């Protein structure tokens, strides 16, 4: 059906791009989640007033286009002579971006654990940390997981913007091939399909877990 000049080599090139997408996503989601959990716990712990500066700071990452953040972050690291490779810069910005969203998820999830349940734990002589670890963490994880999966998918898609800094991820790899082979529709369709194949199973897993855990046993 398709008469294409695309070679297996080129497909490999695309898949390498997909690998870069996954690498950027993986690093950013891991670091962002870690930060998000820490910030989220801090926010719940010190209350909305004291956390206001943190909230404001994180809100910036949710109110400015990621593209602008990336370019700005890159310009900043260059001015500050940090000498980061584009991969590092991308991961740093994307991590903060992820953390901003993750903080909200974590905060909501912790708030959703009924205070009476936490009281019961403390009444048994558990310390704050034990309460957090054995009661809050497992319960909050169930609440947070579907949104967290949504966030992960979001970051994977948004990571396409790192092409702006010269990283050859999936979308950039497709553009390179489009430049050489001049078959935009075909190559872009493959690119879209790969994105779809990367995210669809995770999306389904999210839906499944949501269904499974929402009545909660």
């Amino acid at each position, binding site marked *: 059906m398709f008469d294409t000049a695309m070679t297996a*080599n080129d497909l490999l*090139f695309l898949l390498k791009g997909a690998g870069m997408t996954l690498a950027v996503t993986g690093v950013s989601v891991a670091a962002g989640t870690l930060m998000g959990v820490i910030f989220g716990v801090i926010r719940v712990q010190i209350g909305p007033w004291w956390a206001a500066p943190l909230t404001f700071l994180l809100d910036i990452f949710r109110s400015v286009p990621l593209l602008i953040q990336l*370019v700005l972050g*890159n*310009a900043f*690291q*260059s*001015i*500050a*002579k*940090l*000498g*980061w*490779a*584009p991969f590092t810069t991308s991961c740093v910005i994307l991590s903060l971006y992820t953390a901003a969203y993750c903080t909200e998820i974590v905060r909501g999830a912790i708030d959703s654990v009924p205070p009476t349940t936490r009281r019961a734990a403390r009444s048994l002589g558990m310390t704050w940390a034990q309460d957090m670890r054995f009661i809050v963490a497992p319960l909050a994880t169930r609440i947070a997981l579907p949104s967290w999966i949504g966030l992960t998918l979001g970051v994977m898609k948004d990571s396409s913007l790192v*092409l*702006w*800094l*010269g990283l050859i991820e999936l979308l950039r790899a497709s*553009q*390179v091939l*489009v*430049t*050489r*082979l*001049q078959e*935009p529709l075909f190559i872009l369709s493959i690119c879209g399909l790969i994105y779809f194949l990367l995210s669809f199973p995770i999306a389904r897993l999210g839906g499944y877990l949501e269904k499974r855990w929402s009545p909660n046993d």
Partner: protein
Amino acid sequence: DKLDDIISSGTLRCAVVLDFPPMGSRDANNTPVGFDVDYCNDLAAALGVTAEIVETPFPERIPALMSGRVDVGVASTSDTLERAKTVGMSVPYFAFEMAVTSNDKAGITSFEGMKGKTVGATAGTFEAIALEKQVKEWGEGEFRPYQTQADVFLALSQGQIDATVSTSTVAQANVKTGNFPGISVVGKAPFDTDYVALFTNREEYGLINYLNLFVNQQVRTGRYAELYEKWVGGDLPDLTVSGVYR
């Protein structure tokens, strides 16, 4: 200073734009090739170090330099006064003539024929700035900047735009590939010659001095003509302007 740093580190890192044939592009194995790539290799050889090509999209050239990820830009960068406020430019190492390429269906045969049509160019380039000004002057038609040269030609061959002004080298290289059916170079654009320079940090006088001499040597030794023949072909553009020093 930086010159010493390069020599003692043993590598020269050049910022090169790789979707700008014939100056920089990728071959079928996706390895970097082009005039700028060779030029960087020559510079490295002169310094007695090995070259490292760092691919940078157009917008990434300066941040890469500022952050110290590259030492020198060999990236077809027009030496505008505006930019010289930010980075240090060498004397021109290459000069572009501007050519009009049009989609055959648009029926454009000259620069003037673009009046009232939809035209495009690579955002922020010398020719894009000049062309946008021209469209405004004509008072009709539309100008569209694209982020890469490749996108401009893609848009042109799809008929999204009717014509483009680009450096003649790029125009010829693209038409020659045969990748873009239905487009052809139809004439010269009466813009000033676009002189492009090597660039590095503004305050690195020692290095800038070296770069100036290197450009001079390339012309003197005939290497410039040789590279030009290899990648572009045809009349060798003059790198000097009569009546003034630089």
